[in-house]
């Protein structure tokens, strides 16, 4: 009951933003931020720092302790780098983190998105798939064509190369006409994709609002003896 009242008050505070920025909205927002920060700190200590750092250091074998020295050295470097005199030391862990993140992200994007997606576009023109997949073959062919036009058009839209005209040196260089035409087609696909994303965002927000209104209605119903 108590937490229900708290939840109701916080929900109303957040919804009060409809009448503009006010104290109650800011109070609820700051409360959420503060609670999240505190909770995250406890979570990191419980799930990361204690089991992967302090516990091996205290009760682990010498082999485990030697392993812990690596993150310990990197952590100390980061802390020491906060002093301007030793700021150079912090470059080592930061470079390590940046390099590792770039490697994982780029590797995943190339081998997990670009290559598989290109392969999927090419395989969409496989006649075997047209006839073995459920549905009519001409629908599959149409889907493959639309997919190809969409891919080429979208890539053409983001092609910003310019070509200088050979007949006139004074006129500004411009994009080739083929690229311009395909770029216009790509605009349509980009617009449809962004429209779908917007519809999805609105749908998610609408469901969140429905959930809050349902919560308030059920709480009030329970408060006054309803079911």
């Amino acid at each position: 009951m108590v937490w229900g009242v708290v939840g109701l008050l916080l929900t109303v505070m957040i919804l009060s933003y409809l009448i503009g920025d006010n104290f109650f909205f800011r109070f609820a927002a700051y409360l959420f931020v503060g609670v999240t920060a505190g909770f995250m700190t406890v979570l990191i200590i419980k799930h990361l720092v204690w089991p992967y750092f302090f516990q091996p250091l205290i009760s682990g074998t010498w082999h485990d302790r030697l392993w812990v020295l690596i993150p310990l050295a990197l952590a100390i470097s980061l802390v020491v780098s906060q002093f301007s005199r030793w700021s150079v030391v912090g470059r080592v862990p930061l470079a390590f983190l940046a390099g590792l993140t770039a490697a994982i992200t780029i590797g995943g994007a190339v081998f997990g998105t670009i290559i598989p997606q290109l392969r999927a576009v090419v395989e969409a023109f496989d006649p075997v798939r047209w006839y073995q997949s459920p549905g009519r073959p001409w629908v599959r062919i149409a889907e493959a064509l639309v997919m190809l036009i969409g891919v080429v058009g979208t890539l053409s839209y983001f092609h910003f190369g310019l070509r200088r005209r050979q007949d006139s040196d004074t006129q500004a260089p411009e994009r080739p006409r083929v690229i311009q035409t395909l770029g216009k087609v790509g605009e349509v696909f980009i617009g449809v994709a962004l429209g779908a994303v917007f519809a999805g965002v609105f749908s998610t927000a609408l469901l969140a609002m429905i959930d809050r209104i349902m919560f308030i209605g059920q709480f009030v119903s329970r408060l006054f003896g309803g079911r």
Partner: protein
Amino acid sequence: MCQASLAGVEPIHLTESLDNGQDDRDLLPQADADLPSLLESLKGDDDLSDFSAHEGEGQPSLPLDIEALEGEGEGEPEPDVPEWLNRIRQRAQTESDSMGEITQKITAAKDSLGDDKEESQRSEFNSLIKKIQEVDDQSDNDHAKAEESNESGQPEVTDADWLRRIRDKYHLSPDTDSQESLNERTGDSLLQWLVSLEEGGNQIAEAADPSKTSELPEDTHEVDISPAVSETTQEIALESKRPSKQKAPELSVSREEQVGADQLAAIIIDEKAPRPARTPDTGFRPHNIRFLMGLLLTVILSMALFLRTPSDSLRGTQQPNSLALMNWAESLSAESNLLLVLDYQAGYSAEIELLAKPILMTIAEGTREVSILYTSPSGGLLFHRLLDKAGLTEGLGVIDLGYYPMESYGAYGFANQASSKWQLRNQPEFSKNIPTDPFGGILILADAYEGGVTWIEQFSTLAPDTPIYVLVTAQAGPQLTPYWESGQIRGLASGMPDAVGFDNQVVTLPSHWRAYQAGVIVMIIVLTISLLFPIQQPQQHQWGKR
């Protein structure tokens, strides 16, 4: 010790003339009684009293000679002189030595010089008096002009009291025509020098005044200085000093540069052009629109949620992607090693729970245990709440692998661990918490595209044999659909329509679905109206007018 003789040195009696009680000004000779009134005014001046006193004795007026005063008390005993000094003086008069002779000669020469000087100073004084009389006559003519200028009330620049008294006495004004008066007042008397100095000062003050300077002709090349001042100064010819006007070189402007200059000039003119004052916008403001839209949506959703209709039946359709997910959940066996990745925030838990509840209930029918890890801080809490809502707190065992702050590292580590053919021989004990056996399937619950695609990329690359199933919110569904089309994920469910398709027996879904439909219809209407009748922002409105 000084051996100089004091012969010829006579005591000075300054107090006699001052103590006799008679006004020295009465000693003026009768011949000088008709002196110009200037000297009469000087009589009243305390600073010049000595001057008048010695003038009456026939002494030169300026400079005041102290030797003239020394002669007055010659031969008389001096009461204040000490005895030893008198003895020295008497001895110096009676005895003659070499030094005494020299001193006497010097004294004699000085006396003769004093006589010559006396005569020349007397003649100078007479000429001064004569010139002052001439100036007096001239000043009577300028009296009318001076009074007019005084009445005009123009302030003087520097007016000392003594100078003002002189000017008042002679009815002189600094505003009179200085050029004319100074041309006529030739001479080197003190009065003229003072007057010319004062008027020269006025001219300097006028030159420093920019308002008066602007009245000067532009082509003035030399400073016009009055003759009186020019006696002590030189005429400055500015023409030779000023730099000559150089002819500006002609600009060579191309056509493009001229066009650019014209555009710049047009912009400047346009900026300076008068425009009507900005009127306050009385129309709808975004704040009001937001409030009205929120109120409208709240009312409609409340009505759709809480007003019961006779038929609460719900029939949804399942898409192939969501159907594949449900089929996989139904096919799991009791020994299946299943990993649940929780990557969603509490705000999206309502939609995720609508989707995940029927799936989890289906999984719990075949599997006894699942492993979970979460990349959002509240992931663990949200999963237990999900189990609570699905009524699976007792029926499904949960292995908590913990919190992984960075999903890219976590996904890479898990995928690499699951697919690696070789293991570190001496890896630390704590790293063995990560299961090394390949998972029978991975179910990703994400609220955004970024969270889901990281796991898809890593597992589809490093562990392509591990089946991936994704359960995301509606905002991430359209962006993850290509991964379903490419076969990288085996099943995908997103949004309210797929939740309705999973199970239409859940009690809360009909009202949710009805409210969802009402909200979508409202938004479609609002978007259509806003497209037909756009509400312009005030700033855009002004810009459009321009």
